[in-house]
């Protein structure tokens, strides 16, 4: 927690230091409370959504279901904590916190509402409006893997360790695709400060939202975010059928639920990132009044609500996917990350960069609707290509995917050779005996 506080002080406050610190403290307390309660309610939401999708009712006993998270929390606090004899205790205790903290700290830089021109001066609706916001997020995203890997390692259990290993491989692979997918966004924004990214998208919303102008990048980011948060269909680190519960097999009571808090925290953070980078942040579509002065308190409130609505939609999307798709096989996961997402992301950077240069040479201003419309048209085309040309058993290879005839020929030769050798050996043995 040292770093963001330091960064807060760096982010040159426009008003007096006292007001700045007071406003930041209030923002932190309010935000943290909402965030934690929100995460608790998300555990309920997940169970409800899963139930509805399976034609069930879901939890509806404790306070009509609304108090279920509180009951779960109380139970987990009162349960006995068990420590395996062979576990390495310091890391075993540290790991759940390590899983959760990066998700929480990432929120420090995400702008969640329009700035508020109060009577004490302008108050930014981000805990720390860093000028390098986006790089900060990338740095923290790679820290998220530590919690899981340390949990797997310190449990001293082979299943936990396998879960930890899987998650490290998975996260490292998908982080690259994720980073590459955000480059088109940064190309369009021309800046790594997140409020600049939001401002750029507000021009002719929703046509200038990056989901319209960089659709493929958004799709890649979406898939990579699923892998980064270890959600289905990428939850191989805790694949029950193979690894019991993966990295958290040995955890009990509140430490166990800490991993769940971390998972939901990561989900919310990834959804917020997706909303910020690709869906205009706190921007309200089809209107322009929310982006211009005067920045009243009401405007801040409305944009914040809108931002949270976007986050909730993506959180719902996560749950929706979870109850739709089955878990991938490990080789499918790796092939998707390295052989599909990464090359597509790299190609897409070139395409978007070329399109931006071409449109600028043609004389369209980046904030005009022609510029964004042209990019949108290009993306519609590319999505059609992706769906109808590229996606023919190549994106996720099914068990019955085609085998290259040359490959098959070579394999037949190898087996023929081996069979010949074996029969020779048998003849030699027969002679000897």
């Amino acid at each position, binding site marked *: 927690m040292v770093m963001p506080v330091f960064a807060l002080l760096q982010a040159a406050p426009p008003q007096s230091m006292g007001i700045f610190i007071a406003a930041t403290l209030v923002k932190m307390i309010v935000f943290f409370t909402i965030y934690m309660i929100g995460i608790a309610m998300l555990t309920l939401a997940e169970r409800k959504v899963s139930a509805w999708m399976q034609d069930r009712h879901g939890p509806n006993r404790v306070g009509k279901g609304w108090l279920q998270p509180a009951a779960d929390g109380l139970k987990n606090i009162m349960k006995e904590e068990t420590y395996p004899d062979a576990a390495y205790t310091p890391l075993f205790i540290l790991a759940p916190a390590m899983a959760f903290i990066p998700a929480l700290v990432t929120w420090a830089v995400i702008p969640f509402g329009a700035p508020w021109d109060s009577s004490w001066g302008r108050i930014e609706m981000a805990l720390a409006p860093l000028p390098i916001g986006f790089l900060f997020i990338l740095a923290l995203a790679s820290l998220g893997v530590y919690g899981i890997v340390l949990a797997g390692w310190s449990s001293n259990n082979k299943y936990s360790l396998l879960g930890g290993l899987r998650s490290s491989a998975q996260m490292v692979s998908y982080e690259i695709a994720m980073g590459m997918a955000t480059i088109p966004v940064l190309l369009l924004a021309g800046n790594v400060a997140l409020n600049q990214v939001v401002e750029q998208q507000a021009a002719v919303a929703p046509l200038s939202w990056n989901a319209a102008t960089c659709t493929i990048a958004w799709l890649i980011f979406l898939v990579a975010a699923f892998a980064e948060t270890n959600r289905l269909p990428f939850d191989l680190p805790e694949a029950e059928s193979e690894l019991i519960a993966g990295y958290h097999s040995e955890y009990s009571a509140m430490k166990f639920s800490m991993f769940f808090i971390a998972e939901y925290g990561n989900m919310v953070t990834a959804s917020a990132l997706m909303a910020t980078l690709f869906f205009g942040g706190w921007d309200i579509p089809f209107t322009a009044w929310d982006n211009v002065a005067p920045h009243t308190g009401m405007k801040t409130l409305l944009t914040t609500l809108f931002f949270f609505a976007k986050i909730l939609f993506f959180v719902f999307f996560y749950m929706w996917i979870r109850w739709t*798709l089955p878990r991938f096989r490990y080789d499918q996961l790796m092939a998707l990350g390295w052989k599909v997402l990464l090359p597509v992301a790299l190609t897409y950077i070139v395409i978007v960069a070329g399109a931006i240069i071409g449109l600028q040479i043609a004389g369209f201003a980046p904030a005009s609707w022609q510029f964004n419309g042209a990019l949108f048209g290009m993306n519609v085309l590319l999505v059609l290509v992706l769906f109808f040309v590229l996606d023919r058993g190549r994106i996720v290879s099914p068990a019955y995917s085609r085998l290259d005839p040359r490959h098959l020929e070579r394999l037949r030769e190898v087996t023929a050779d081996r069979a010949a050798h074996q029969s020779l050996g048998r003849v030699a043995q027969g002679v000897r005996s």
Partner: protein
Amino acid sequence: MAIGVKVLERPIEQTSYLRATLKGMALTFKHMFSEKVTIQYPDQKWSLSPRWRGTHRMLTTEDGKAKCVACGLCPTVCPANCIKLVPGEDEKGNRYPLVFEIDEFRCIFCGYCQEVCPEEAIHVGRHYENSEYSREGFVYDLERLMAQTHPVCEMWDPADPKGE
């Protein structure tokens, strides 16, 4: 890829993962609004079949005595050996059960006792909520069997096999 495995040449729309995903998502979303199949058990109860064979019940005559004449057919026919019957005889020479106990734990609820009973005294019933705190509590004596009030099972009738 192993050799000799038959590789199916599937049409493109079947090998597309993205389109299949969208189709699956449409299906799960549709199910969110479909009718729920859960029965909220303690509040709502499943309606039992008229042929449901549950907790036993001993029927009584108008003067409140058990219809049982202690003929001994039910302990004989019982495949689980769960009926304990000690016959007694009153001064008029009428037989009656001195001890009649059914161990609901041993019982397999086949309903043979009801089928074999010449007096239509012992019945299996349309009732299933019989939890107890001890094993001994599951041995129902005659008084308890007579005190049951639930509807009794209608046995399968060969003349009307579907119960219409």
